[in-house]
Protein backbone atom coordinates (compact mmCIF):
# COMPACT_ATOMS: atom_id res chain seq x y z
CA UNK A 1 0.00 0.00 0.00
CA UNK A 2 2.63 2.51 1.06
CA UNK A 3 4.78 1.59 -1.90
CA UNK A 4 1.90 2.11 -4.26
CA UNK A 5 1.27 5.50 -2.70
CA UNK A 6 4.87 6.49 -3.15
CA UNK A 7 4.75 5.47 -6.76
CA UNK A 8 1.62 7.45 -7.46
CA UNK A 9 3.07 10.47 -5.67
CA UNK A 10 6.11 10.28 -7.89
CA UNK A 11 3.92 9.99 -10.91
CA UNK A 12 1.92 13.09 -10.15
CA UNK A 13 4.94 15.12 -9.20
CA UNK A 14 6.78 14.22 -12.39
CA UNK A 15 3.83 14.98 -14.61
CA UNK A 16 3.49 18.28 -12.77
CA UNK A 17 6.86 19.32 -14.07
CA UNK A 18 5.98 19.00 -17.73
CA UNK A 19 8.18 20.92 -20.11
CA UNK A 20 5.40 21.96 -22.46
CA UNK A 21 5.13 25.30 -20.73
CA UNK A 22 2.09 24.32 -18.69
CA UNK A 23 2.36 23.65 -15.01
CA UNK A 24 0.08 20.69 -14.46
CA UNK A 25 -1.86 20.87 -11.27
CA UNK A 26 -3.22 17.77 -9.65
CA UNK A 27 -6.18 16.28 -11.57
CA UNK A 28 -5.93 18.86 -14.34
CA UNK A 29 -7.11 17.90 -17.77
CA UNK A 30 -4.78 15.56 -19.62
CA UNK A 31 -4.17 16.34 -23.27
CA UNK A 32 -2.71 13.17 -24.75
CA UNK A 33 -0.52 13.88 -27.78
CA UNK A 34 -1.37 11.87 -30.87
CA UNK A 35 1.04 9.05 -31.72
CA UNK A 36 1.87 7.20 -34.91
CA UNK A 37 3.46 3.80 -34.94
CA UNK A 38 2.95 0.06 -34.78
CA UNK A 39 0.97 0.03 -31.55
CA UNK A 40 -1.15 3.08 -32.39
CA UNK A 41 -2.11 1.30 -35.58
CA UNK A 42 -2.96 -1.86 -33.65
CA UNK A 43 -5.01 0.18 -31.20
CA UNK A 44 -6.87 1.90 -34.03
CA UNK A 45 -7.63 -1.43 -35.70
CA UNK A 46 -8.93 -2.84 -32.41
CA UNK A 47 -10.98 0.33 -31.84
CA UNK A 48 -12.59 0.26 -35.29
CA UNK A 49 -13.28 -3.48 -35.10
CA UNK A 50 -14.88 -3.27 -31.65
CA UNK A 51 -16.95 -0.18 -32.46
CA UNK A 52 -17.99 -1.83 -35.72
CA UNK A 53 -19.15 -4.91 -33.84
CA UNK A 54 -21.04 -2.84 -31.28
CA UNK A 55 -22.87 -0.56 -33.73
CA UNK A 56 -23.23 -3.16 -36.50
CA UNK A 57 -24.22 -6.35 -34.71
CA UNK A 58 -27.47 -4.86 -33.50
CA UNK A 59 -28.63 -4.66 -37.14
CA UNK A 60 -27.86 -8.26 -38.04
CA UNK A 61 -30.93 -10.43 -38.60
CA UNK A 62 -30.81 -14.18 -37.97
CA UNK A 63 -33.66 -16.39 -39.13
CA UNK A 64 -36.76 -14.50 -38.08
CA UNK A 65 -35.22 -12.51 -35.25
CA UNK A 66 -32.40 -10.11 -34.47
CA UNK A 67 -29.12 -12.06 -34.17
CA UNK A 68 -28.33 -10.70 -30.70
CA UNK A 69 -31.39 -9.64 -28.75
CA UNK A 70 -31.87 -9.54 -25.01
CA UNK A 71 -35.63 -9.51 -25.06
CA UNK A 72 -36.29 -8.37 -21.50
CA UNK A 73 -40.06 -7.84 -21.84
CA UNK A 74 -40.48 -11.43 -23.07
CA UNK A 75 -37.72 -12.66 -20.72
CA UNK A 76 -35.60 -14.51 -23.27
CA UNK A 77 -32.22 -13.89 -24.85
CA UNK A 78 -31.48 -14.66 -28.49
CA UNK A 79 -27.86 -15.27 -29.45
CA UNK A 80 -27.84 -16.45 -33.06
CA UNK A 81 -29.34 -19.95 -33.02
CA UNK A 82 -29.54 -20.18 -29.26
CA UNK A 83 -32.43 -19.01 -27.11
CA UNK A 84 -31.81 -18.55 -23.39
CA UNK A 85 -34.50 -18.52 -20.71
CA UNK A 86 -34.55 -17.48 -17.06
CA UNK A 87 -33.93 -21.15 -16.15
CA UNK A 88 -30.62 -20.96 -18.04
CA UNK A 89 -29.42 -18.41 -15.53
CA UNK A 90 -26.59 -20.64 -14.30
CA UNK A 91 -25.04 -20.32 -17.77
CA UNK A 92 -24.70 -16.60 -17.21
CA UNK A 93 -22.91 -17.29 -13.94
CA UNK A 94 -20.65 -19.74 -15.76
CA UNK A 95 -20.02 -17.13 -18.46
CA UNK A 96 -18.96 -14.57 -15.84
CA UNK A 97 -16.54 -17.09 -14.31
CA UNK A 98 -15.12 -17.84 -17.76
CA UNK A 99 -14.71 -14.11 -18.41
CA UNK A 100 -12.92 -13.66 -15.08
CA UNK A 101 -10.54 -16.54 -15.80
CA UNK A 102 -9.82 -15.25 -19.31
CA UNK A 103 -8.87 -11.95 -17.71
CA UNK A 104 -6.58 -13.75 -15.22
CA UNK A 105 -4.99 -15.78 -18.00
CA UNK A 106 -4.36 -12.89 -20.36
CA UNK A 107 -3.15 -10.67 -17.55
CA UNK A 108 -0.64 -13.24 -16.33
CA UNK A 109 0.53 -13.80 -19.89
CA UNK A 110 0.51 -10.38 -21.44
CA UNK A 111 -0.29 -7.79 -18.78
CA UNK A 112 -2.95 -5.20 -19.38
CA UNK A 113 -3.79 -6.06 -22.97
CA UNK A 114 -7.46 -5.64 -22.11
CA UNK A 115 -6.98 -2.10 -20.77
CA UNK A 116 -4.84 -0.90 -23.65
CA UNK A 117 -6.77 -2.33 -26.57
CA UNK A 118 -10.18 -3.77 -25.74
CA UNK A 119 -11.73 -2.06 -22.71
CA UNK A 120 -14.83 -0.04 -23.73
CA UNK A 121 -13.51 2.84 -21.63
CA UNK A 122 -10.33 2.93 -23.75
CA UNK A 123 -12.16 2.40 -27.02
CA UNK A 124 -14.73 5.16 -26.49
CA UNK A 125 -12.15 7.54 -25.01
CA UNK A 126 -10.03 7.02 -28.17
CA UNK A 127 -12.92 7.85 -30.49
CA UNK A 128 -13.85 10.88 -28.37
CA UNK A 129 -10.21 12.03 -28.47
CA UNK A 130 -10.29 11.65 -32.25
CA UNK A 131 -13.35 13.92 -32.46
CA UNK A 132 -11.65 16.37 -30.13
CA UNK A 133 -8.51 16.46 -32.29
CA UNK A 134 -10.54 16.93 -35.46
CA UNK A 135 -12.38 19.91 -33.96
CA UNK A 136 -9.91 21.50 -31.55
CA UNK A 137 -6.66 20.51 -33.22
CA UNK A 138 -3.47 18.99 -31.83
CA UNK A 139 -2.40 18.82 -28.20
CA UNK A 140 -0.65 22.22 -28.36
CA UNK A 141 -3.63 23.83 -30.08
CA UNK A 142 -5.99 22.41 -27.47
CA UNK A 143 -3.88 23.72 -24.58
CA UNK A 144 -3.69 27.12 -26.29
CA UNK A 145 -7.42 27.18 -26.93
CA UNK A 146 -8.22 26.38 -23.30
CA UNK A 147 -6.01 29.26 -22.13
CA UNK A 148 -7.64 31.80 -24.43
CA UNK A 149 -10.31 34.11 -23.08
CA UNK A 150 -13.83 33.33 -24.25
CA UNK A 151 -14.36 34.37 -27.86
CA UNK A 152 -16.78 33.43 -30.61
CA UNK A 153 -14.15 31.25 -32.26
CA UNK A 154 -13.45 29.40 -29.01
CA UNK A 155 -17.15 28.99 -28.24
CA UNK A 156 -17.87 27.68 -31.74
CA UNK A 157 -15.18 25.03 -31.40
CA UNK A 158 -16.18 24.03 -27.89
CA UNK A 159 -19.89 23.88 -28.64
CA UNK A 160 -19.42 21.95 -31.86
CA UNK A 161 -17.20 19.44 -30.04
CA UNK A 162 -19.87 18.84 -27.41
CA UNK A 163 -22.64 18.64 -29.99
CA UNK A 164 -20.68 15.99 -31.93
CA UNK A 165 -19.94 14.12 -28.68
CA UNK A 166 -23.58 14.25 -27.65
CA UNK A 167 -24.90 13.04 -31.00
CA UNK A 168 -22.41 10.18 -30.95
CA UNK A 169 -23.35 9.36 -27.35
CA UNK A 170 -27.06 9.30 -28.15
CA UNK A 171 -26.37 7.01 -31.08
CA UNK A 172 -24.46 4.78 -28.65
CA UNK A 173 -27.42 4.85 -26.26
CA UNK A 174 -29.82 4.10 -29.11
CA UNK A 175 -27.73 1.08 -30.15
CA UNK A 176 -27.57 -0.08 -26.52
CA UNK A 177 -31.37 -0.03 -26.21
CA UNK A 178 -31.45 -1.70 -29.64
CA UNK A 179 -29.98 -4.82 -28.04
CA UNK A 180 -33.03 -5.00 -25.74
CA UNK A 181 -35.83 -3.77 -28.00
CA UNK A 182 -35.51 -4.88 -31.65
CA UNK A 183 -33.50 -2.06 -33.24
CA UNK A 184 -35.59 -1.97 -36.43
CA UNK A 185 -38.77 -1.46 -34.41
CA UNK A 186 -36.93 1.14 -32.37
CA UNK A 187 -35.91 2.99 -35.54
CA UNK A 188 -39.49 3.03 -36.82
CA UNK A 189 -40.65 4.30 -33.44
CA UNK A 190 -37.95 6.98 -33.54
CA UNK A 191 -38.81 8.11 -37.10
CA UNK A 192 -42.51 8.32 -36.29
CA UNK A 193 -41.55 10.11 -33.06
CA UNK A 194 -43.26 7.37 -31.11
CA UNK A 195 -40.56 6.09 -28.73
CA UNK A 196 -41.81 4.56 -25.49
CA UNK A 197 -41.01 6.50 -22.31
CA UNK A 198 -38.70 3.80 -20.88
CA UNK A 199 -36.81 3.32 -24.12
CA UNK A 200 -36.31 7.09 -24.36
CA UNK A 201 -35.12 7.18 -20.77
CA UNK A 202 -32.52 4.44 -21.29
CA UNK A 203 -31.24 5.98 -24.55
CA UNK A 204 -30.59 9.21 -22.69
CA UNK A 205 -29.23 7.47 -19.59
CA UNK A 206 -26.74 5.34 -21.52
CA UNK A 207 -25.92 8.24 -23.83
CA UNK A 208 -25.21 10.46 -20.86
CA UNK A 209 -23.01 7.78 -19.28
CA UNK A 210 -21.02 7.49 -22.53
CA UNK A 211 -20.64 11.27 -22.81
CA UNK A 212 -19.56 11.57 -19.18
CA UNK A 213 -17.16 8.61 -19.14
CA UNK A 214 -15.49 9.09 -22.52
CA UNK A 215 -15.70 12.89 -22.73
CA UNK A 216 -15.10 14.03 -19.18
CA UNK A 217 -13.97 11.32 -16.77
CA UNK A 218 -11.62 9.41 -19.09
CA UNK A 219 -8.51 8.23 -17.21
CA UNK A 220 -10.25 8.88 -13.88
CA UNK A 221 -12.49 5.89 -14.62
CA UNK A 222 -9.38 3.71 -14.87
CA UNK A 223 -7.80 5.19 -11.77
CA UNK A 224 -10.76 5.50 -9.40
CA UNK A 225 -13.52 3.25 -10.71
CA UNK A 226 -11.84 0.21 -12.18
CA UNK A 227 -11.44 -2.65 -9.72
CA UNK A 228 -9.26 -4.56 -12.17
CA UNK A 229 -6.57 -1.86 -12.04
CA UNK A 230 -6.40 -2.28 -8.28
CA UNK A 231 -6.10 -6.04 -8.10
CA UNK A 232 -4.18 -6.78 -11.27
CA UNK A 233 -0.92 -6.80 -9.31
CA UNK A 234 -2.09 -10.12 -7.83
CA UNK A 235 -1.94 -11.68 -11.29
CA UNK A 236 1.40 -10.15 -12.28
CA UNK A 237 4.71 -11.86 -11.84
CA UNK A 238 8.20 -11.05 -13.03
CA UNK A 239 7.54 -12.72 -16.38
CA UNK A 240 4.38 -10.78 -17.24
CA UNK A 241 4.58 -8.66 -20.36
CA UNK A 242 4.50 -4.96 -19.53
CA UNK A 243 5.46 -1.59 -20.92
CA UNK A 244 8.71 -0.54 -19.30
CA UNK A 245 11.49 1.97 -19.60
CA UNK A 246 15.00 0.51 -19.74
CA UNK A 247 16.55 2.46 -16.91
CA UNK A 248 19.94 0.82 -17.28
CA UNK A 249 20.17 2.02 -20.87
CA UNK A 250 18.42 5.36 -20.54
CA UNK A 251 19.81 6.86 -17.33
CA UNK A 252 21.27 9.31 -16.57
CA UNK A 253 18.87 11.28 -18.72
CA UNK A 254 19.50 14.66 -20.24
CA UNK A 255 19.67 16.85 -23.32
CA UNK A 256 22.68 16.57 -25.54
CA UNK A 257 23.94 17.90 -28.87
CA UNK A 258 23.21 15.84 -31.94
CA UNK A 259 25.85 13.31 -32.84
CA UNK A 260 27.49 13.27 -29.40
CA UNK A 261 28.17 9.81 -28.03
CA UNK A 262 26.15 9.71 -24.79
CA UNK A 263 28.77 7.58 -23.05
CA UNK A 264 31.42 10.25 -23.59
CA UNK A 265 29.41 12.84 -21.64
CA UNK A 266 28.32 10.34 -18.99
CA UNK A 267 24.71 10.09 -20.11
CA UNK A 268 22.30 7.33 -21.07
CA UNK A 269 20.12 7.08 -24.15
CA UNK A 270 17.14 9.02 -22.75
CA UNK A 271 17.27 12.57 -24.09
CA UNK A 272 14.60 13.60 -21.57
CA UNK A 273 12.29 15.01 -24.25
CA UNK A 274 9.28 14.02 -22.09
CA UNK A 275 7.23 13.06 -25.12
CA UNK A 276 6.43 9.77 -23.37
CA UNK A 277 4.67 11.81 -20.68
CA UNK A 278 2.81 13.94 -23.23
CA UNK A 279 1.35 10.97 -25.07
CA UNK A 280 0.23 9.16 -21.92
CA UNK A 281 -3.57 9.07 -21.65
CA UNK A 282 -3.36 8.70 -17.87
CA UNK A 283 -0.70 11.37 -17.48
CA UNK A 284 2.05 9.29 -15.86
CA UNK A 285 5.78 9.09 -16.51
CA UNK A 286 6.63 5.55 -17.58
CA UNK A 287 10.23 6.13 -16.51
CA UNK A 288 9.13 6.03 -12.86
CA UNK A 289 8.60 2.30 -13.16
CA UNK A 290 5.51 0.10 -13.01
CA UNK A 291 2.47 2.10 -11.91
CA UNK A 292 -1.08 0.97 -11.52
CA UNK A 293 -2.28 3.95 -13.58
CA UNK A 294 -0.49 2.54 -16.65
CA UNK A 295 -3.11 0.97 -18.91
CA UNK A 296 -0.50 -0.59 -21.18
CA UNK A 297 -1.59 1.29 -24.31
CA UNK A 298 2.02 1.46 -25.58
CA UNK A 299 1.66 5.05 -26.84
CA UNK A 300 4.96 5.85 -25.10
CA UNK A 301 6.68 2.99 -26.97
CA UNK A 302 5.58 4.43 -30.31
CA UNK A 303 6.66 7.97 -29.56
CA UNK A 304 9.99 6.93 -27.99
CA UNK A 305 10.83 4.74 -31.00
CA UNK A 306 10.19 7.75 -33.22
CA UNK A 307 12.55 9.86 -31.12
CA UNK A 308 15.21 7.13 -31.06
CA UNK A 309 15.01 6.96 -34.88
CA UNK A 310 15.51 10.73 -35.08
CA UNK A 311 18.55 10.85 -32.81
CA UNK A 312 19.97 7.69 -34.34
CA UNK A 313 19.86 5.38 -31.30
CA UNK A 314 18.43 1.86 -31.41
CA UNK A 315 14.70 1.54 -30.78
CA UNK A 316 13.20 0.03 -27.66
CA UNK A 317 14.29 2.36 -24.85
CA UNK A 318 10.65 2.03 -23.80
CA UNK A 319 9.36 -1.37 -24.88
CA UNK A 320 7.17 -4.36 -24.19
CA UNK A 321 9.27 -6.52 -21.93
CA UNK A 322 9.14 -8.38 -18.63
CA UNK A 323 10.72 -7.59 -15.32
CA UNK A 324 13.08 -10.54 -15.68
CA UNK A 325 13.97 -9.76 -19.30
CA UNK A 326 14.82 -6.14 -18.61
CA UNK A 327 17.23 -7.32 -15.91
CA UNK A 328 18.81 -9.82 -18.33
CA UNK A 329 17.31 -12.90 -16.71
CA UNK A 330 15.50 -15.78 -18.35
CA UNK A 331 11.82 -15.00 -18.82
CA UNK A 332 9.79 -18.07 -19.78
CA UNK A 333 6.34 -17.64 -21.29
CA UNK A 334 5.08 -21.02 -20.09
CA UNK A 335 5.19 -21.12 -16.32
CA UNK A 336 3.02 -22.79 -13.68
CA UNK A 337 0.75 -19.76 -13.24
CA UNK A 338 -0.01 -19.50 -16.95
CA UNK A 339 -0.46 -23.26 -17.35
CA UNK A 340 -2.84 -23.48 -14.39
CA UNK A 341 -4.93 -20.53 -15.54
CA UNK A 342 -5.05 -22.00 -19.06
CA UNK A 343 -6.08 -25.43 -17.78
CA UNK A 344 -8.88 -24.04 -15.61
CA UNK A 345 -10.04 -21.82 -18.47
CA UNK A 346 -10.19 -24.74 -20.91
CA UNK A 347 -12.05 -26.87 -18.38
CA UNK A 348 -14.61 -24.13 -17.79
CA UNK A 349 -15.06 -23.53 -21.51
CA UNK A 350 -15.63 -27.23 -22.07
CA UNK A 351 -18.13 -27.34 -19.20
CA UNK A 352 -19.96 -24.38 -20.65
CA UNK A 353 -20.07 -25.81 -24.16
CA UNK A 354 -21.37 -29.09 -22.75
CA UNK A 355 -23.99 -27.29 -20.65
CA UNK A 356 -25.24 -25.37 -23.69
CA UNK A 357 -25.30 -28.40 -26.00
CA UNK A 358 -26.96 -30.68 -23.46
CA UNK A 359 -29.72 -28.26 -22.53
CA UNK A 360 -33.10 -29.92 -22.84
CA UNK A 361 -34.94 -27.71 -25.32
CA UNK A 362 -38.31 -28.62 -23.91
CA UNK A 363 -39.52 -27.47 -20.50
CA UNK A 364 -42.56 -28.59 -18.52
CA UNK A 365 -44.12 -26.94 -15.48
CA UNK A 366 -47.05 -28.66 -13.79
CA UNK A 367 -49.39 -26.41 -11.86
CA UNK A 368 -52.19 -28.10 -9.92
CA UNK A 369 -55.53 -26.35 -9.81
CA UNK A 370 -55.37 -24.29 -6.64
CA UNK A 371 -59.09 -23.93 -5.98
CA UNK A 372 -60.07 -27.54 -5.37
CA UNK A 373 -58.08 -30.44 -4.02
CA UNK A 374 -59.95 -32.94 -6.22
CA UNK A 375 -63.35 -33.54 -7.85
CA UNK A 376 -65.51 -36.59 -7.85
CA UNK A 377 -67.16 -37.44 -11.13
CA UNK A 378 -70.72 -38.86 -11.39
CA UNK A 379 -69.06 -42.16 -12.32
CA UNK A 380 -67.34 -42.24 -8.91
CA UNK A 381 -63.87 -41.43 -10.23
CA UNK A 382 -61.48 -38.96 -8.57
CA UNK A 383 -60.30 -36.16 -10.82
CA UNK A 384 -57.40 -33.66 -10.53
CA UNK A 385 -57.02 -30.65 -12.83
CA UNK A 386 -53.59 -29.43 -13.95
CA UNK A 387 -52.37 -26.50 -15.99
CA UNK A 388 -49.26 -27.43 -17.97
CA UNK A 389 -46.79 -24.78 -19.09
CA UNK A 390 -44.83 -26.17 -22.01
CA UNK A 391 -41.73 -24.23 -23.09
CA UNK A 392 -40.42 -24.79 -26.61
CA UNK A 393 -36.78 -23.72 -26.72
CA UNK A 394 -36.11 -25.16 -30.20
CA UNK A 395 -36.11 -23.00 -33.31
CA UNK A 396 -39.11 -24.84 -34.82
CA UNK A 397 -42.77 -25.18 -33.98
CA UNK A 398 -43.35 -28.43 -32.05
CA UNK A 399 -46.31 -30.70 -31.36
CA UNK A 400 -46.25 -32.64 -28.11
CA UNK A 401 -48.22 -35.46 -26.57
CA UNK A 402 -48.63 -36.13 -22.87
CA UNK A 403 -48.78 -39.44 -21.02
CA UNK A 404 -48.76 -40.26 -17.30
CA UNK A 405 -47.46 -43.12 -15.21
CA UNK A 406 -47.60 -43.98 -11.52
CA UNK A 407 -51.37 -44.39 -11.33
CA UNK A 408 -52.81 -47.64 -12.63
CA UNK A 409 -55.69 -47.32 -15.08
CA UNK A 410 -55.71 -43.55 -14.96
CA UNK A 411 -57.41 -41.61 -17.72
CA UNK A 412 -56.26 -38.35 -19.28
CA UNK A 413 -58.77 -35.82 -20.59
CA UNK A 414 -58.44 -32.36 -22.06
CA UNK A 415 -55.59 -30.91 -24.18
CA UNK A 416 -53.17 -33.77 -23.76
CA UNK A 417 -52.86 -34.54 -27.47
CA UNK A 418 -51.73 -32.30 -30.29
CA UNK A 419 -50.22 -29.73 -27.94
CA UNK A 420 -48.77 -27.13 -30.33
CA UNK A 421 -46.16 -24.63 -29.20
CA UNK A 422 -44.39 -22.17 -31.51
CA UNK A 423 -40.61 -21.71 -31.36
CA UNK A 424 -39.54 -19.72 -28.32
CA UNK A 425 -43.04 -19.68 -26.85
CA UNK A 426 -44.70 -21.01 -23.72
CA UNK A 427 -47.90 -22.98 -24.31
CA UNK A 428 -50.55 -23.33 -21.62
CA UNK A 429 -52.73 -26.48 -21.58
CA UNK A 430 -55.37 -27.72 -19.15
CA UNK A 431 -55.57 -31.48 -18.58
CA UNK A 432 -57.74 -33.56 -16.27
CA UNK A 433 -56.56 -36.83 -14.76
CA UNK A 434 -59.17 -39.34 -13.56
CA UNK A 435 -58.65 -42.49 -11.57
CA UNK A 436 -60.68 -45.05 -9.63
CA UNK A 437 -60.27 -44.25 -5.88
CA UNK A 438 -59.63 -47.97 -5.19
CA UNK A 439 -56.07 -47.67 -6.56
CA UNK A 440 -55.24 -44.70 -4.30
CA UNK A 441 -53.23 -45.93 -1.30
CA UNK A 442 -52.45 -42.47 0.06
CA UNK A 443 -54.18 -39.08 -0.09
CA UNK A 444 -51.29 -37.83 -2.17
CA UNK A 445 -49.69 -39.92 -4.93
CA UNK A 446 -46.72 -39.00 -7.08
CA UNK A 447 -47.50 -39.03 -10.78
CA UNK A 448 -44.98 -38.80 -13.61
CA UNK A 449 -45.90 -36.67 -16.59
CA UNK A 450 -44.09 -37.54 -19.81
CA UNK A 451 -44.11 -35.01 -22.58
CA UNK A 452 -43.01 -36.30 -25.97
CA UNK A 453 -42.59 -34.47 -29.25
CA UNK A 454 -44.46 -36.20 -32.05
CA UNK A 455 -41.88 -35.35 -34.70
CA UNK A 456 -38.59 -35.70 -32.77
CA UNK A 457 -38.17 -38.84 -30.67
CA UNK A 458 -35.30 -37.44 -28.61
CA UNK A 459 -37.32 -34.40 -27.62
CA UNK A 460 -38.97 -35.37 -24.35
CA UNK A 461 -39.18 -34.38 -20.72
CA UNK A 462 -40.50 -36.04 -17.56
CA UNK A 463 -41.72 -34.12 -14.52
CA UNK A 464 -43.29 -35.34 -11.30
CA UNK A 465 -46.57 -33.96 -10.02
CA UNK A 466 -49.02 -34.80 -7.25
CA UNK A 467 -52.39 -36.46 -7.47
CA UNK A 468 -54.66 -35.70 -4.50
CA UNK A 469 -57.54 -37.89 -3.46
CA UNK A 470 -59.83 -38.59 -0.50
CA UNK A 471 -58.44 -39.95 2.77
CA UNK A 472 -58.23 -43.73 2.56
CA UNK A 473 -59.96 -45.63 5.35
Amino acid at each position, binding site marked *: *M*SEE*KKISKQATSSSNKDDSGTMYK*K*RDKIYPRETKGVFSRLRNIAMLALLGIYYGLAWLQWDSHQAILFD*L*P*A*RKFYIFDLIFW*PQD*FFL*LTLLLIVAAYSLFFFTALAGRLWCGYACPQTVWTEIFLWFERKIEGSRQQQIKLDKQPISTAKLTRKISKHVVWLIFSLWTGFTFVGY*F*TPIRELTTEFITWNL*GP*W*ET*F*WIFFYGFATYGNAGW*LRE*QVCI*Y*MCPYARFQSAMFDKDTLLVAYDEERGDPRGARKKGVDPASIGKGDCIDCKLCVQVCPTGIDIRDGLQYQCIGCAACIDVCDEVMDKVGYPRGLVRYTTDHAIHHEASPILRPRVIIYAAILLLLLAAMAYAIVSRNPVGLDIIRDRNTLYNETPMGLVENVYTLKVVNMTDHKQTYELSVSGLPESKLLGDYKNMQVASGEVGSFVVRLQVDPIVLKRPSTAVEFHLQSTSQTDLAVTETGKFLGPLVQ
Partner: protein
Amino acid sequence: MTTDTENSSEENLPTIQKVISILWPSFVMAAFATIFFFTVFSPSELALIKGWTDVSNLAGYTIGFFLFWLLTALSCALTCFFRKPCTPKYYKNTDELDDAEE
Protein backbone atom coordinates in the same frame (compact mmCIF):
# COMPACT_ATOMS: atom_id res chain seq x y z
CA MET B 1 0.01 4.16 13.36
CA THR B 2 -0.69 2.75 9.96
CA THR B 3 -4.43 3.30 10.32
CA ASP B 4 -3.75 6.94 11.16
CA THR B 5 -1.78 7.54 8.02
CA GLU B 6 -4.34 5.68 5.96
CA ASN B 7 -7.15 7.76 7.43
CA SER B 8 -5.31 10.95 6.77
CA SER B 9 -4.95 10.01 3.13
CA GLU B 10 -8.64 9.13 3.04
CA GLU B 11 -9.51 12.64 4.20
CA ASN B 12 -7.47 14.07 1.36
CA LEU B 13 -9.13 12.03 -1.34
CA PRO B 14 -10.05 13.94 -4.50
CA THR B 15 -13.75 14.90 -4.58
CA ILE B 16 -14.28 12.80 -7.66
CA GLN B 17 -13.05 9.73 -5.81
CA LYS B 18 -15.42 10.46 -2.91
CA VAL B 19 -18.39 10.80 -5.25
CA ILE B 20 -17.37 7.70 -7.19
CA SER B 21 -16.95 5.63 -4.03
CA ILE B 22 -20.65 6.22 -3.28
CA LEU B 23 -22.20 6.10 -6.74
CA TRP B 24 -20.10 3.48 -8.46
CA PRO B 25 -20.02 0.42 -6.13
CA SER B 26 -23.72 0.95 -5.48
CA PHE B 27 -24.38 1.06 -9.23
CA VAL B 28 -22.57 -2.25 -9.78
CA MET B 29 -24.34 -3.94 -6.87
CA ALA B 30 -27.72 -2.57 -7.96
CA ALA B 31 -27.12 -4.03 -11.41
CA PHE B 32 -26.35 -7.43 -9.88
CA ALA B 33 -29.35 -7.24 -7.57
CA THR B 34 -31.62 -6.32 -10.50
CA ILE B 35 -30.37 -9.25 -12.55
CA PHE B 36 -30.75 -11.76 -9.70
CA PHE B 37 -34.12 -10.48 -8.52
CA PHE B 38 -35.79 -10.21 -11.90
CA THR B 39 -34.43 -13.55 -13.09
CA VAL B 40 -36.61 -15.11 -10.42
CA PHE B 41 -39.56 -12.72 -10.45
CA SER B 42 -41.17 -11.24 -13.52
CA PRO B 43 -41.98 -7.56 -12.84
CA SER B 44 -45.35 -7.64 -14.55
CA GLU B 45 -46.40 -10.68 -12.49
CA LEU B 46 -45.25 -8.95 -9.31
CA ALA B 47 -47.30 -5.90 -10.26
CA LEU B 48 -50.36 -8.08 -10.80
CA ILE B 49 -50.23 -9.19 -7.16
CA LYS B 50 -50.75 -5.54 -6.25
CA GLY B 51 -53.51 -5.30 -8.80
CA TRP B 52 -51.60 -2.98 -11.14
CA THR B 53 -52.29 -4.12 -14.67
CA ASP B 54 -50.57 -1.39 -16.68
CA VAL B 55 -46.98 -1.98 -15.53
CA SER B 56 -44.84 -3.24 -18.40
CA ASN B 57 -41.81 -5.43 -17.79
CA LEU B 58 -39.47 -2.70 -19.01
CA ALA B 59 -40.97 -0.21 -16.56
CA GLY B 60 -40.59 -2.79 -13.79
CA TYR B 61 -36.92 -3.39 -14.55
CA THR B 62 -36.20 0.33 -14.69
CA ILE B 63 -38.00 1.23 -11.47
CA GLY B 64 -36.56 -1.85 -9.74
CA PHE B 65 -33.03 -0.96 -10.80
CA PHE B 66 -33.28 2.60 -9.52
CA LEU B 67 -34.82 1.51 -6.23
CA PHE B 68 -31.95 -0.95 -5.75
CA TRP B 69 -29.48 1.77 -6.66
CA LEU B 70 -31.05 4.20 -4.18
CA LEU B 71 -30.74 1.62 -1.39
CA THR B 72 -27.19 0.58 -2.22
CA ALA B 73 -26.11 4.22 -2.65
CA LEU B 74 -27.58 5.08 0.74
CA SER B 75 -25.70 2.20 2.27
CA CYS B 76 -22.43 3.30 0.62
CA ALA B 77 -23.00 6.88 1.76
CA LEU B 78 -23.59 5.77 5.34
CA THR B 79 -20.42 3.67 5.24
CA CYS B 80 -18.44 6.68 4.07
CA PHE B 81 -20.08 8.88 6.68
CA PHE B 82 -19.26 6.54 9.56
CA ARG B 83 -15.69 6.16 8.41
CA LYS B 84 -15.02 9.81 9.16
CA PRO B 85 -12.74 10.16 12.18
CA CYS B 86 -14.53 11.46 15.29
CA THR B 87 -11.80 12.53 17.74
CA PRO B 88 -10.36 16.03 17.33
CA LYS B 89 -7.11 14.64 18.76
CA TYR B 90 -6.79 12.62 15.61
CA TYR B 91 -6.23 15.71 13.47
CA LYS B 92 -3.36 16.88 15.65
CA ASN B 93 -1.71 13.51 15.28
CA THR B 94 -1.92 13.51 11.52
CA ASP B 95 -0.55 17.06 11.31
CA GLU B 96 2.44 15.92 13.25
CA LEU B 97 2.75 12.92 11.04
CA ASP B 98 2.59 14.99 7.91
CA ASP B 99 5.22 17.36 9.26
CA ALA B 100 7.45 14.47 10.11
CA GLU B 101 7.06 13.05 6.63
CA GLU B 102 8.10 16.28 4.99
